[in-house]
């Protein structure tokens, strides 16, 4: 992936910039020594690294505003950063940018169980939001795989999803309000503890804007009461097509599981070798989970199992205890780690209409042969959000480029099938130059005009989301 060349004029301002930032922040909140800023040179897309000019760790909305005002004055680009878990390079800096990390802002500001919301600073991790309300049997629904580490700020920037969004929706469906600082230092409050927007749904466009419209410092999030219970069932099938048809039939039958997860043979084998969850050796595996009281779960699973049996499963395993449930989920939850044991991998995130599942899986298999790279598929089948994992060797010359080329082909395939490039990880730098496969120039132009409104100088995370060629005139301006 190409990144814009750093501006020599900005690089030359470093000393003055650090001096001005140090005047508004505590001394330990401005990181500018060469060996220290290395910690901020990349996010979870580790193939790309570049140390920033400096990094700042403000502790309040007001400090964020002061930082942004200075950078705005000096025309220095700013890259906001949550916990740095982006798989898309959303927090990758350029050499002439300031990393603005929100990690020090992690407080719970307010919890309200009667009105069912929590207000937090956005450096707080996803899982610790649920942690803050758990003793009252409440939870925060979006559950990205990285939830132990990822910050709410990043969840909002990428509109993160998770395994349970078939029932509970993604971040944008659970976000009620934000306090946000614009690039010029203006502090805005949008939404709050009430529902829906008074006028335009600005919350809806801020969520998922990949840190390009402002720095969100506080968020009001919907919290929900935990269900009485949940139980998964494991189903093995002898082809991807049959598993895909079973997913479709479950959905059509009128039950709505909270999760339908799909794994293909390469992933099943890898997770068995890694975690030993006791999965059957078959072509495709589904984990279907439903929620409710014991009786409600029995009723829903009864219907689901009846549908599954029509598809001649090679295995049907209903959990009868918490321990068995944990074992059913064990393989799925360790899938990425298991694939990582085999080799380096690149995790894609395209979404397709559920009906295209068998066709797309077949084509991915063909591409795998063509490129000579192994692929495992593990994904959220209920909503068509695929996560093909392409294995490659980062130490082998040319393998990363080969892997990226194959990834691009898979994502184009997702778009051709009626889907999209990214379902929950975001565009970042990773899918930036593929945007033209999904969007016509006018579709991208109107999106860039929205950024023009929020950040006229294009200083916030400027080299992301849009193909560099499309945004060039704006970034230079």
């Amino acid at each position: 992936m190409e990144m814009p060349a750093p501006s020599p004029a900005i690089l030359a301002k470093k000393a003055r910039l650090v001096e001005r930032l140090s005047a508004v922040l505590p001394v330990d909140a401005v990181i500018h020594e060469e060996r220290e800023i290395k910690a901020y040179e990349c996010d979870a897309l580790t193939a790309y690294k570049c140390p920033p000019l400096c990094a700042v760790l403000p502790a309040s909305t007001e400090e964020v505003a002061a930082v942004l005002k200075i950078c705005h004055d000096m025309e220095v680009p700013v890259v906001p950063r949550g916990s740095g878990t982006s798989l898309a390079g959303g927090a990758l800096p350029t050499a002439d940018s300031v990393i603005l990390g929100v990690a020090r802002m992690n407080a719970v500001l307010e919890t309200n169980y009667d009105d069912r919301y929590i207000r937090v600073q956005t450096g707080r991790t996803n899982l610790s939001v649920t942690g803050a309300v758990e003793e009252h049997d409440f939870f925060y629904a979006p559950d990205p795989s990285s939830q132990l580490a990822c910050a709410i700020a990043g969840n909002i920037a990428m509109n993160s999803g998770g395994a349970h969004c078939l029932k509970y929706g993604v971040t944008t469906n659970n976000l009620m309000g934000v306090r946000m600082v614009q690039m010029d230092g203006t502090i805005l409050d949008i939404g709050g503890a009430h529902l829906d927007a008074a006028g335009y749904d600005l919350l809806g466009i801020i969520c998922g804007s990949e840190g390009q419209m402002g720095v969100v410092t506080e968020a009001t999030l919907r919290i929900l009461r935990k269900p009485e219970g949940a139980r998964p069932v494991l189903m093995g099938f002898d082809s991807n097509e049959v598993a895909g048809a079973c997913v479709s039939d479950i959905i059509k039958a009128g039950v709505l599981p909270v999760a339908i997860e799909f794994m293909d043979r390469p992933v099943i084998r890898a997770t068995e070798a890694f975690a030993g969850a006791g999965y059957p050796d078959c072509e495709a595996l589904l984990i279907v989970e439903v929620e409710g009281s014991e009786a409600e779960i029995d009723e829903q699973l009864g219907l689901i199992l009846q549908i599954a049996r029509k598809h001649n499963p090679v295995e049907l395993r209903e959990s009868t205890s918490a321990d068995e449930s944990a074992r059913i989920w064990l393989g799925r939850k360790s899938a990425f780690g298991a694939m990582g044991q085999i080799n380096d991998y690149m995790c894609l995130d395209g979404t397709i209409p559920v009906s295209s599942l068998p066709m797309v899986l077949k084509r991915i298999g063909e591409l795998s042969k063509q490129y000579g790279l192994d692929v495992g598929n593990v994904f959220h089948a209920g909503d068509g959000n695929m996560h093909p994992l392409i294995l490659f060797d980062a130490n082998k010359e040319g393998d990363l480029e080969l892997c990226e080329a194959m990834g691009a082909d898979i994502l184009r395939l997702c778009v051709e099938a009626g889907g999209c490039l990214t379902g929950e990880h975001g565009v970042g730098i990773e899918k930036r130059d593929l945007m033209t496969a999904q969007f016509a120039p006018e579709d991208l132009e109107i999106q860039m005009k929205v950024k023009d409104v929020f950040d006229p100088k294009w200083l916030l995370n400027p080299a992301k989301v849009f193909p560099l060629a499309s945004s060039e005139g704006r970034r230079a301006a």
Partner: protein
Amino acid sequence: MIEPTSERALADAVRDARGPLKIRGGGTRPIGNPVTGEVLSTAKLSGITLYEPGALTIVAQAGTPLAEIEAALAKENQRLPFEPMDHRTLLGTDGEPTIGGIVAANVSGPRRIQAGACRDSLIGVRFVDGAGTAIKNGGRVMKNVTGYDLVKLLAGSYGTLGVISEVSFKLLPGIAARAVLTVAGQDVAASVVTMSKALGSPFEVSGAAYANGRTVLRIEGFADSIAYRTEKLKDLLEDDGAVSVETDPANVAAIWAGIGDVTDFKGGDEDIWRISVKPSDAPALVAALGDARTMLDWGGGLIWVACKAGTNLRAIAPEIAGHRTLIRASDATKTALGCFHPEPAPVQAINAGLRSKFDPRGILNPGLMG
């Protein structure tokens, strides 16, 4: 009146417009400040483009009647999740509600508290901006974070940012059975406590409203589950008052249509306001409203008010956060008070900026949202 029959014709009509356009779907929801201009109707952009029951998604042209969509979904035992309100009784309008109109006004119903608003189920839009350019955003898949989410921005923009030509939704399975629990003899404060208790329970309450001294709670799902949750909720609410249960489908439907469509407030010469607050603020606000008639939905988070014509409800207890929209009033009152809640200056600046980018000539429903 201009009635394009294709998106291309719609784009041409907008591009060639010489003056302001008044955008119309089915014309059943005349919400917003008065607009003068040539009527541009989307009624002839009609028909379901794609429906995949196995993927829980539907795509339809903007002018498709809601009734046509609901009939197609019912055949497959599916539904739109957000239970859009029908404004015809409340506003005294007739005509055919269209799916594009529902999106343009982000119309939801009582199930908003459980299933989200229209914008939460909307996964794709096609629209024509004020320059006459056809644009797409989102698509037909449930999870999509590719680029900015203009889908949400277009929902509830009342035709002021673009003329919607096609919309896509994610769907939910149909509902097998329903029950309504009624708690009689409560005042507003007691009702909000009851509703918060029910909505904060694990029993999946899909409607919580208060009208005429009664709190009504709705649960939906499979029959055995309804019976189970009914008992659990009765136990939970035993200190709140006598609980009666209605499970007859016709009666349940009638109770909720009345609430969702606010039929108690039909006719008359009062103004109608729609107020969004956090539920626990509702009792104080209702008390401050004095003699005005009120009805609560969304567990107290949505307050419908019928009050003396010309009253500026925003001047009453202004410290209570949220927003207050004037839904029904004379044109003079709408113009004097503005239908949409005034926003802080920096938000206004962003809104004005967006309008200037999406509609540089200012011809799409100019002034409707202020």
